[in-house]
């Protein structure tokens, strides 16, 4: 039997912006409602929750314990310098914490929302000045560097603040995803719509959670992100995170030249589209390719049920990371779906025409952005 190339390729559905908008306004899930989707989303989020737990612990460790360390060689070890841990690190029997840093850098670079605005404020500058004075008084290397490059330590503190904020954000998300897995196991969640509702409620419940960050320098405690700054979970970290990591991302090493050749690197940073919702699930799996790093990490924590199903589809274990990426994108559409549902200006069943128009405009702006993303994964025919 001759092999026909076209039979080996599969094009998933590509809903239009209008279709997406209609679904958002009708309160329907973007992801098709099937039992298999439920299993994929819940299980992949469970493994993601496990990974985020480790990422979160590490980012908070880095921000607090490796603060202003110019050579943080052991920053992935969470302070455990035992030979066994170092050996496992060297043979790469570990999570790719580089992915967490990629997300942090992405957030830091795109810099949207209240956190970024605070990092440029006078209050922040003043507290940084105090921290730097204290630190340089005891660290001759930094004391030498600071007068030469006065913005260097300031920028490091900004970066550390983003790192800590992301660690706090992922703490909440990790708990939420692991709760979701438990809820599905005990029958409280049994549809994709219930998954989206569960996450929306989780996000809304955590929305006003304050984001604060303090460091200890030479025995003295300083606020970097003080409670007075009024930074909150949803508006100042979650939304910028979605913007930076789900949508914009960064053209990363190894693929940037392909994107550049295809003239896909936008000169406008705000229109970048390399985020999780746009990522090609067929990466080269090389080092430095962010989606690959995350897929490798989730593979380490894959629930048995999902792993078993992956083994039975396409190449089984051979292309398991691609399948994780497809499932992950499905689940990230659920999270995005929940975030949009939780941030509509008015309740969807509001009778006021002005409120409805505002909701429509909000849904339309999201639908327009999402229509260019990998919406093909919303289709159940796509693994």
């Amino acid at each position, binding site marked *: 039997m001759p092999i026909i*190339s076209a039979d*080996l390729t*599969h094009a998933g559905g590509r809903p239009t912006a209008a279709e997406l908008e209609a679904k958002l306004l009708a309160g329907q899930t973007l992801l098709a409602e099937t039992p298999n989707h439920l299993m994929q989303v819940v299980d992949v989020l469970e493994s993601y929750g496990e990974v985020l737990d480790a990422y979160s612990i590490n980012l908070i460790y880095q921000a607090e314990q490796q603060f202003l360390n110019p050579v943080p060689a052991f920053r992935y070890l969470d302070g455990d310098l035992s030979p066994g841990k170092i050996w496992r690190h060297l043979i790469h029997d570990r999570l790719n914490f580089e992915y967490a840093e990629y997300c942090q850098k992405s957030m830091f670079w795109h810099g949207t929302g209240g956190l970024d605005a605070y990092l440029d404020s006078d209050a922040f500058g003043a507290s940084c000045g105090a921290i730097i004075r204290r630190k340089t008084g005891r660290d001759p290397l930094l004391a030498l560097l600071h007068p030469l490059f006065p913005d260097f330590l300031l920028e490091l503190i900004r970066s550390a603040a983003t790192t800590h904020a992301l660690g706090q954000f992922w703490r909440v998300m990790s708990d939420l995803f692991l709760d979701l897995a438990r809820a599905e196991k005990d029958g409280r969640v049994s549809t994709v719509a219930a998954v989206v509702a569960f996450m929306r409620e989780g996000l809304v419940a955590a929305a006003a959670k304050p984001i604060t960050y303090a460091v200890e320098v030479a025995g003295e405690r300083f606020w970097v992100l003080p409670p007075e700054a009024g930074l909150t979970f949803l508006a100042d970290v979650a939304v910028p995170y979605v913007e930076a990591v789900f949508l914009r991302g960064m053209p990363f090493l190894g693929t940037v030249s*392909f994107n550049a050749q295809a003239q896909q690197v936008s000169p406008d940073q705000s229109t970048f589209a390399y985020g999780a919702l746009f990522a090609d699930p067929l990466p*080269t799996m090389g080092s430095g390719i962010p989606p690959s790093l995350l897929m490798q990490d989730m593979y380490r924590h894959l629930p048995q049920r999902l792993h078993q199903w992956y083994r039975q589809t396409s*190449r089984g274990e051979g292309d398991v990371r*691609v399948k994780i990426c497809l499932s992950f994108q499905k689940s990230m559409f659920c999270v995005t779906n929940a975030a949009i549902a939780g941030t509509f200006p008015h309740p969807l069943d509001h009778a006021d025409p002005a409120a409805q128009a505002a909701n429509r405009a909000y849904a339309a702006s999201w639908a327009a952005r999402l229509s260019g993303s990998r919406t093909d994964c919303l289709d159940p025919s796509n693994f």
Partner: protein
Amino acid sequence: MLSTLLLIPFIGAFALLFWPGQPVPGRMRVVTIVVLGLQLAWSLRVLLAFDPGDGGMQLQESFAWVSSIGLDYRLGIDGLSLPLVLINAALTLVSAVCTRDISQRPRIYFALLLLISGAVNGAFLAENLLLFFLFYELELVPLWLLISIWGGTERAYAATKFLIFTAVSGVLILGAFLGLALFTGTVDFSLTPVLSERLAMGSQLLLLGALLIGFGIKIPLVPFHTWLPDAHTQASTPVSVLLAGVLLKLGTYGLLRFCLGMFPEAWALLAPWLAGWAAVSVLYGSLAAIAQRDMKRMVAYSSVGHMGYILLAAAAATPVSLLGAVFQMVSHGLISALLFLLVGIVYRKTGTRDLEVLRGLLNPERGLPFTGTLMILGVMASAGLPGMAGFISEFLVFRGSLEAFPLATLLCMVGSGLTAVYFLLLVNRAFFGRMAITPPSADPVADARLDIRLAAVAPRETIPAMALATAVVAIGLIPAWLGRISEAASTTMARLPALLASLQNGGVG
């Protein structure tokens, strides 16, 4: 001992033809593999019995057959034919192993495969011109059948073209052999150098010209090459392996054994022209390969280019260049067989060989990463990178020919550089970038979303290619293994003109 090398495949072929009961493809394949395994083992036994220090014919066997017309059964082996006998055994075995989806007429298919292998052994071992010719013709029809029955959609055209070209080649060779008898008035068809005291130079040039064109078609050299890309494109993978790896070597073997070996004086006269011809062939083959979009045609054109090196080496006829020619025959046999195997795997998995379509096959999860890795190794070997067989052979050929024909050698070196160009094009197009196996549409966003579900390559499918890749690297790292077998013979052959000249001038010393 040498007759056994003919008996094993021939008896195997007849056993398959008369195998009782319905032919089951799997069983026929196993029997063939066993027979070819025996043939390989026996070839290795011949290798053990072979004395590398002796540059002449060894292990000779002969009996009078039809002596009245000069047809004697005379076999012998030397450092030129032994490596070719070995790669014949190895590559026919590879062909049989990589034949997986023969559903129609398995009995005939495998019998023909064995018949070809036996005939090729016969041609390499024959010490009588007519006997060589018989074996040379004997492999034609089976190969024609292999292309015309089990080939691609245009197989009838390609097979007929192949048959016409190689039949003309056979006629020219037979004509030259008979012409030799006619001009010299004897029926001596033994492998004896023909000298001007026996035959006028004009007649020598005429006979040599006929042989050159005859073998030039088989090798093939530009402009007689046009049958080869078509035959390769339409032939199935195992047949391409055999064609590139073994059958083309009949042409180069004939060039060295019969053209250079029998007409050394006329050869020396024509050598500068032959070196020029080699350069043209190399450059044309390489440039044509650059223009191809079918992977298999590209590899086929690379054969045209790489066979030109052997003509250059033969034209220079120095001990080093002739040793290089033997190396090039072996390394080209292994490398082109490897490349055809890998192209075959790509084609079997993706349904296309179009370089305008294939992309990113090196993708580790959904692509053909191991096949791609071997392909990169294969093209590096073909481009002559150190550490692999291609480097040794090209280095010896160029080193041996540079002083005799500097310009032609330099042009051939350019051809060697062009090999890197077209094979990098191949690897870059088919193996790097975002994976694709269908033609690009007008919407690049839609193309970038296509989910591609190729079947994985099972480890057993890559065993033949891995074996060849190992051999390519082994020869590259330890060339002395092969060099030891062939050095005495190539030195003897290179000294032939000088020896004959001194004999004519009243003896050696």
